[in-house]
Structures are given as C-alpha cells and as structure tokens.
C-alpha cells in the first residue's frame, strides 16, 4: 500500500499551501514540502524491493469492462524518475521560497507545483496505459498553469497557451496510439503490454502506433519540429523552468520512449524516426543556443539540444545506447536544474537576464559563480563531472551505429559537431556572465543571494561532482535497475569509469572541447553571420496559425450553422438517411421468413383512408384548418390500427390523446395565421419531397424487413410473471406500474416538466387576439350554445364514472391511469368548451400545478414506501380481500402508483389546454401578470 501513497501524498499536498495561506512564507514552504517529503521517504522504503529486481504493483478495479483500472507500478525506471521528480521537487520548493517576491501568490504557486508533481508521478508510476495518458494530460494542464503563473504578462500567457496547444495536441495523438496498443494487445495493463513487444511490432498497425506514440513523446520533449514551445515557456518563474525543463515535463516524453522501449523499439522505422529526429534536435538546439542573449533562452535551447541527444541515444536501438540515454537523463537533470537555478539567482540579483548587460559577475557573487561554472562545465562535458561520462558513452555508441550503411560515419561527425556548439555555449555562459569586463547598466547592484537560496544549487552540484568522480558507487546500482527495466531484460556489459584509455571517444571529446573554444573565441564573426538572417519569431507564427485556424473554423461553422432550423433538420435527416442506407444495402433479402397475416378488406379500406388522409394533410398543408381535419382522420385510423392488432390499451390511449391534440391544435390555430404563405422555392420543394420520399421508403423497408422476421423476445417473462408477481392480468398495465415502474415515474415527471414549461411560455405571452377569421368575417361573440351546455353538463358525471371504472379495472383489463386520466381531462375540457373559462373558474377550483406535483409525489412515495418493508424502490404488494355484497376484490400498491399517474396526466393536460384557452378571456394569465 505504500506505493499508492507515493502519488497520493503530493496530491493531498496540493491543498496544503492553500490551507496554510495565512501563515508566514517560511511556514507555507515548510508545510508544502512536508507531504512530498513523506512520499520521498516512502519511495526509499520501497527501494530494497525494487533494487532486488521486483516490480511492485497495486491496482483497483474502476471500469473493468472498458479495461480501466487504477493501477500503480514501481520498477527500476519508475523508481529513478520518481526519485528525480520528488528529489528535485524538494529543492525547487526551497528555492521558490526565496525566489518568489511578496507580490506573488505563493500558496497558489505551490499548489500548482504540487499538482504538477502529482501528475508527473502519476505518469511514471502508472500501471495502466489510459491512466498514464490521464496523468500525461494533467501535466499539460498543470504546466499551463505554472508557465502562465505571471498571468499579467502577455509573454507568459502566450507561452503557456503555446505549450498547452502543442503538448495537448501531442497528447491526443498519444491517446490514439495507446488505444491502438490496447486494441492490439487486448489489455491496457502496462505489464501485459510490455510483454507483448513482438505482437505489436509484427502487427500491421505498428507504423501507425509508433508514429502516434512518438508524436506524443516528441511534442512533450520539445523535439524538432515541435521544439519551439519550450523557449517560450521560459516566461515562467525560474523555479518552474528549473523543474519543468530539467527533471520533469520535457522528460515525460523521454520517459514514455524509455517505457515503451521494449515494445516499440528494435525496428528500422524506430531507428529512422527517433534517432534522426534526435540528431536534428541536437544540432539545431546547440546551434541556436549559442546566439541567445537571454540567459534562460540559452539554457532553453541547450535543453532542447540535450533532449535531442537523449532521443538520439534511445533511437540507436542498442542496449548500451539505452543505458547511456538513462545515464544522461540523470546527469542532465542534475546540471540543468542547477544552471536554471543559478540563472534565476542572477536574474533575481541583477534584474536582467541579458548577457550583453551581465558581465563580470565573478567579483560580485563568487560563490554562485563557482557553482554555475561547475554546472556549465558539466554541461560541456568536462572530465571529472557527470556530463563527461554520459557524453563519452554517447560518442562510443555513435561509432558503433551501422544502420545508415555507408553513411553511418555521419552520425559521429554530427554528434561531435553538436558537442562543439555545446562547448561553445557553455563557454559563453561562463565567460560572458562571470568575466568579460564590467556589467553594463544593471538595474540592481548584484550581490550574493540569501544563504538558503544557494543550497539547492549546492546539492545538485555536489551530485554532479560525486557522479562524475565515483560513478560506480553513486549511480551504478540505480542505473542498472533503471536500465534493465527500460530494456525489459538483461543488462549489457558496460563500465562506468572516468578513464577508458586513449580511444576514439576521448579524441572526439578533445576535438569538441578545442572546437568549441575556437568557435567561442571567434564568436563575433559568427554573430555577424547569423545577424544576416531575419529571426523568425515562433510566437508570431504560432499566433498567426492559430488565428487562421480559428478563422477557418468560423467560416465552416457559419456555413453549417447559419441559424436556419429548416437547414439543420434537413442535414440531420439527410445524414440519418446516409447512415441507414449502408446497412440496408448489405441486407440481402427484404422479406423475412415469418408467416404473414392475410390481408382483409376492412384493413385495406382503412389503409386507403389513412393514405388519403395523410396525402390530404400534406397537400392542404397551407390551408391549416383542412390540414388538421385530415390529420385527425389519420390519428383515428392509427388508433383503429392499434385496436386491430390486439392492443386495446394503445387504441384507448391514442383515441383520447387524439381528442386533446385536436383541441390543442384548434385553440392554437385561433391565434395563428389561418393559412401558410407560399414561400418555398420550387427547387426547395423538389429537394424536400425527394428527401422525404427516400426516407419514407427506407423506413418503410426497414419496418417491413423487421416485421416479416421471426421474433425472439423476452415477453414470455412478463407474461409468466404478470399475474404471479404483479398481481394483474393486463400485462401492459403491469409493465407500466410494476415491472418498469421507474420508467413510468420518469415519464410522468417529463410530462409534468413539459406542462410547467408550457405554462411559463403562456404566462408571458403577448398575443394579438384576432377578432375575425382570415376572410374577414368577425368571430361570433354569442353565448355558449345551450344544447352543448346542457348535454355536456349531464355527460360529466357519466364520463367521470367511466374514467373511474377504466382506472380501477386497469390492472386486469384494458385501462389504467394514463387512459383514465386522459378521459377525465377530456370530460373537463368539454365543460370548458361548453361553458367558457369564466363559468368553470367559479366552479372548479383546482390548481393544476399542484395536481401534477401531487401526482408525481404520490407515485414517488409509493416507491419509497417499499423501503419500509425492506424492499427495493417501487416493489409492489398486492392481496385479495372479501367484502359482503361486493365479493372478492384485489388491492395492490401499484394502484396507488397508478393514481399518481392518473393525477399527473390530468394536471398536465389541463394545465396546457386550460391555460391556452384562458388566453382568449380576461382570465388570461398574461393579463393577470401585467395587472
């Protein structure tokens, strides 16, 4: 379990500085460091197991079906990276305490920093690829927050945005790659994936996987041509630069390549892409670094160059080169972090980072100068320092490499060339800053920084020296376990020694030293040469590309989304048609093998009426009244069809809904234009007609294909259990109130919500009330017809009785809450029609909102009731009782539920219709609102 706490502690730690925000700056820093320090301690407690070659793992199920789990895995490689992240993280926390000024929001900074630390730990410790990717993206986001920490600076904002865009886009490519890996291997578990190297390399998708994963790694590790975001990320506070660009962020890409090394490497494609990209990055970074006047700019490009070097090593496909790569990861982290911190100190104490201004600092800060010079010497690869050792290994490996055939000699030559520039810019860093005359116009008078600000640098420099002088003792075992984890097996023979005798790598080192110093000595000529090239500002180009992208998208969006509903519907249906057409074409026979029903005359006549009425609805669609009269005929035939095909419940429901729909449409038509103006262009008519025709044909065909095929449904379950389990013989009703009661509860809630929405729409409606019909004849203002009033009034009790009967018998015979509710609604609406709103208002004092609410509440409480009997929500109960005179009858809790349905349906229907009807009178809700 200790393993789980390693990423968890820093995660909890993100809250620590925020909670400690009121304390002094020292306390905040101390409290922030506390939990990561504990995590570091935990990491060391795991060391014996890891160094003995074990792979520790802990995992929890998350979404097992999708292959997702929370899994952490600790092997040598992960241990090494975790050590770098937590160890250097501690130093950064200490350093940032002195670096940040009073104005900076220190708790927030620490919180972001720990979030980033958590994300990095998550990447290196993940035992699941998807989880790894999650933390990968989290580093992009948290580094965005860190780089843009000084959000008042435009530079910082732009730099942060650029880093997020590039690394985020790379992250998407990585996700695609990892998903493909998961597809090929059949698991996202890292252990399983690492064991399936051959499977992946021989798979047809291997090139795609490789390119996608490498895109992720290259963008993160600032490899050419994605390197340009890194220098711009330098607008971050220096502790961030020191952390992100030495040990963590950019190393995530390297880590990914090392992690996936056993799976993806070993092919010629890997060599070509990885090593050539690395070589290009190495050269470009080293060359450009020399010309940067900004201290951090120089370090940024040198970082790019060293990342290229590590990538080149990883790309060379030999075991020794991989060991060298891992060795250089550690060395680079140590000297680059200390160099960044030294640069931060110089910036802090002089107020500028321009190397044309800062000269001769040796006199002012000898201590810091010594530290920085040692670090820079290590960067240049001077013997007795750690950088020298890995550089020697690098040279030796470039000489071994043969994949480029007769052109293989170019690799060591270019490697030496890159190192020449590396020596030159290191020399510039030392000579320009600490010697070379006197400072020019410094904003501040430089002096040594606070004592504790130097400690992190001193620790790192000590490390550089220790590794450089006693490599076997200090780094040997760690390098061995990390390399064997990265290689996924045995280690090659290598020796970590300072002296290997006079050999070619030593000669190359010597050449690089001399060449670098010569170049630095003649730098004026080079600077003049370089000044002839107009400097391309990556930021401007990037912003331009982004703006063009946004513009392009806007144009497309405006074309697609021009605000026309007609167009949207058209496109939507068109797309649906295309999607349906594919499977339809694959379907060989339209007709299935099920025996078909014989066609009888009555049904045929009904179908002809239906077709005629449908056509009439369409043909007369501009004469709205005619159109809805034909529509009502269609609805009637549809309810008859339900009755014909053995669905009496549906027939009853459709019939009563038909009535309320027609009343609704007629009421609405009163307020709307009676006719639709002719405005569709003939071309549009043809277009719409053809689409409608095709989609109708497709749907009809699908339907035919479906109903002529035999059905194997689960209906037998409902038929068998309806009586015994639900206590009712009307299976449809039992499904509604019992088996699928929760669905019904949801549906009546939807009904209630729709009615409420309609009520709110009506309340504020300001409608022009027409006084005449479309031909100018005034509407009759006479009283309500007496015949209708009298008949409907006497019909009311009868109708209510019918609805009560339908409701009660619903469980065993066709009927139930929905139908009874609709019948009651129709009966009440009839009274509205016959007597008018005013007359009803005096007699029927029901608040429909309350009715809906109580209906849903009753239904829900019925469900809750079963909890009191220790049953799941909505379990029903029923029993039979005997009363004299009436005989045996059944009581079921489902009836109470159905009562809720009944009330909701009445409430919703009347809320819609009565309120719409009220618009015609002085009872209009709109009038009331304005009074």
């Amino acid at each position, binding site marked *: 379990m200790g393993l789980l706490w390693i990423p968890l502690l820093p995660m909890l730690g993100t809250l620590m500085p925020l909670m400690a925000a009121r304390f002094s700056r020292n306390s905040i820093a101390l409290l922030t460091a506390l939990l990561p320090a504990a995590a570091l301690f935990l990491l060391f407690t795991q060391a014996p197991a890891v160094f003995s070659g074990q792979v520790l793992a802990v995992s929890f199920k998350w979404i097992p079906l999708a292959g997702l789990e929370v899994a952490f895995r600790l092997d040598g490689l992960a241990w090494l990276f975790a050590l770098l992240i937590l160890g250097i993280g501690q130093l950064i926390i200490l350093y940032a305490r002195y670096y940040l000024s009073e104005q900076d929001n220190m708790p927030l900074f620490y919180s972001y920093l720990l979030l980033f630390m958590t994300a990095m730990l998550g990447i290196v410790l993940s035992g699941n690829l998807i989880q790894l990717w999650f933390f990968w993206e989290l580093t992009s986001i948290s580094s965005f927050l860190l780089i843009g920490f000084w959000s008042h600076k435009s530079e910082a904002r732009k730099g942060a945005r650029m880093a997020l865009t590039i690394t985020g886009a790379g992250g998407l490519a990585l996700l695609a790659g990892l998903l493909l890996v998961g597809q090929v291997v059949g698991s996202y578990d890292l252990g399983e994936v690492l064991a399936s190297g051959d499977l992946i390399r021989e798979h047809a998708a291997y090139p795609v996987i490789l390119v996608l994963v490498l895109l992720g790694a290259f963008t993160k590790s600032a490899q050419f041509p994605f390197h340009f975001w890194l220098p711009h990320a330098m607008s971050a506070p220096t502790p961030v630069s020191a952390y992100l660009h030495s040990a963590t962020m950019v190393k995530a890409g390297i880590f990914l390549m090392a992690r996936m090394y056993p799976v993806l490497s070993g092919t010629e494609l890997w060599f070509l892409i990885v090593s050539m990209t690395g070589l290009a990055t190495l050269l470009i970074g080293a060359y450009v670094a020399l010309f940067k006047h900004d201290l951090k700019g120089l370090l940024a490009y040198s970082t790019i160059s060293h990342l290229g070097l590590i990538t080149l090593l990883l790309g060379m496909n030999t075991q020794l080169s991989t060991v060298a790569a891992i060795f250089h990861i550690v060395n680079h982290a140590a000297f680059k972090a200390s160099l960044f911190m030294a640069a931060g100190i110089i910036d802090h104490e002089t107020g500028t980072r321009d190397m044309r201004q800062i000269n001769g600092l040796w006199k002012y800060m000898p201590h810091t100068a010594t530290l920085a010079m040692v670090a820079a010497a290590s960067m240049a690869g001077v013997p007795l320092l750690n950088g020298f050792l890995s550089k020697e290994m690098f040279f030796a490996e470039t000489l071994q490499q043969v994949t480029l055939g007769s052109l293989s000699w170019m690799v060591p030559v270019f490697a030496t060339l890159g190192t020449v520039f590396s020596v030159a810019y290191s020399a510039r860093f030392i000579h320009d800053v600490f010697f070379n005359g006197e400072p020019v116009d410094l904003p501040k008078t430089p002096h040594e920084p606070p004592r504790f600000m130097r400690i992190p640098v001193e620790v790192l420099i000590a490390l550089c020296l220790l590794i450089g002088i006693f490599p076997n003792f200090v780094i040997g075992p760690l390098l061995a376990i990390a390399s064997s984890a990265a290689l996924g097996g045995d280690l090659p023979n290598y020796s970590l020694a300072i002296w290997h005798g006079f050999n070619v790598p030593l000669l190359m080192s010597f050449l690089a030293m001399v060449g670098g110093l010569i170049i630095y000595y003649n730098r004026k000529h080079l600077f003049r040469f370089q000044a002839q090239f107009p400097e391309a500002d990556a930021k401007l180009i990037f912003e331009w590309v982004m703006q063009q992208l946004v513009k392009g998208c806007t144009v497309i969006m405006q074309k697609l989304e021009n*605000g026309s*509903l*007609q167009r949207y519907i058209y496109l939507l249906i068109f797309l649906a048609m295309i999607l349906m057409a594919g499977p339809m074409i694959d379907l060989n026979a339209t007709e299935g093998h099920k025996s078909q*029903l014989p*066609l*009888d005359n009555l*049904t045929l006549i009904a*179908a002809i009426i*239906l077709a005629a009425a449908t*056509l009439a*609805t*369409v043909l007369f*669609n501009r004469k709205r009244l005619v159109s809805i009269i034909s529509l009502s005929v*269609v*609805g009637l035939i*549809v309810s008859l*069809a339900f009755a014909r*095909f*053995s*669905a009496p*419940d*549906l027939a009853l*429901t459709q019939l009563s*809904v038909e009535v309320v729909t027609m009343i609704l449409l007629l009421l*609405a038509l009163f*307020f*709307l*234009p009676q006719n639709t*103006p002719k*405005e569709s262009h003939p071309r549009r008519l043809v277009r719409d007609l053809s689409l*409608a025709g095709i*989609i*109708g044909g497709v*749907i*009809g065909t699908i*339907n035919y294909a479906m*109903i002529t095929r035999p*059905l194997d*449904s689960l*209906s037998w379950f409902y*038929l068998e259990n309806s*009586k015994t389990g639900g206590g009712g013989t*009307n*299976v*449809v009703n039992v*499904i*509604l109130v019992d088996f699928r009661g929760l669905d019904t509860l949801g*549906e009546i809630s*939807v*009904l209630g919500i*729709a*009615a409420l929405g*309609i009520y709110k*729409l009506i309340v504020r*409606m*300001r*409608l022009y009330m027409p006084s005449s019909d479309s031909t100018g004849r005034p509407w009759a203002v006479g009283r309500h017809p007496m015949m209708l009033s009298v008949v409907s009034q006497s019909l009311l009790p009868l109708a209510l009785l019918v609805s009560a009967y339908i409701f009660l018998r619903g469980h*065993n*015979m066709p009927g139930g809450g929905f139908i009874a509710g609709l019948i009651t609604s129709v009966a009440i609406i009839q009274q509205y029609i016959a007597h008018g709103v005013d007359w009803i208002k005096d007699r029927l004092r029901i608040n429909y909102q309350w009715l809906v609410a109580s209906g849903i509440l009753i239904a829900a409480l019925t469900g809750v009731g079963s909890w009191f009997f220790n049953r799941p929500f909505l379990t029903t109960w029923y029993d039979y009782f005997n009363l004299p005179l009436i005989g045996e009858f059944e009581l079921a809790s489902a009836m109470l539920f159905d009562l809720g349905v009944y009330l909701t349906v009445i409430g919703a229907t009347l809320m*819609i219709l009565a309120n719409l009807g009220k618009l015609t009178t002085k009872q209009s809700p709109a009038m009331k609102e304005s009074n």
Partner: protein
Amino acid sequence: MEAIFAFSVGLLTAAGVFLSLRGRSFPVVVGITLLSYAVNLFLFSSGRLTINGAAVLGTSEVYADPVPQALVLTAIVIGFAMTAFVLILGMRSRADLGNDHVDGRLAVEPEEKKK
C-alpha cells in the same frame, strides 16, 4: 398485411418529414405529429403484428407482445406533451417576433423576401 402496414408507416414518415421541413411553425407541428404516429406504429410493430391476440391473461392462447405496447403507451402521452410544447413555443415565438417562421427571423425579413 405486413406490407400494407409497412407502406403506411413509410408514407406517414415521408409526409411527416416533408412537413417538418416547412418554414412555418404550424405545418412543422403537424409534421411532427405525423412523424410521431409513424414512430409509434413502428415501435409497436417491433412486437410483430398479431390479430385477435389476447390483451388479458387467460383469455386466449395467442398473446400480443406486451413490451412494445407498454413502451408506446407512454410514448403517445409524452408525444402529446412534446407536440404541445413545440406548438406553444411556436406561438410564443410569433408573439415575440411577430411571425411564425421557424428560423426565428425578425418581423421585417419575410416582407423583404417577398420582393
């Protein structure tokens, strides 16, 4: 029988789609109503067509499939609520904008179009 049923569903769909593509809210509502008939019939028929099937247990050997029926029953009621909502929305948009065009154009635009 099956063929004529499927034909009717197809016809209702075609008519519904055509009317849904009109420019004024009222024909669109009529179109949606037709479409919901088609959808309900379609869903209902997924239990296959049965004639003289029993609706109630114990009255016959042949039963109609109750599951699609239960689904369609609530669909009919909710379909009504949705039709009503769209209709009232159309009325409201006419009240606020002065015309009943579905694209929510301002009142002046249709007249410009006539020219």
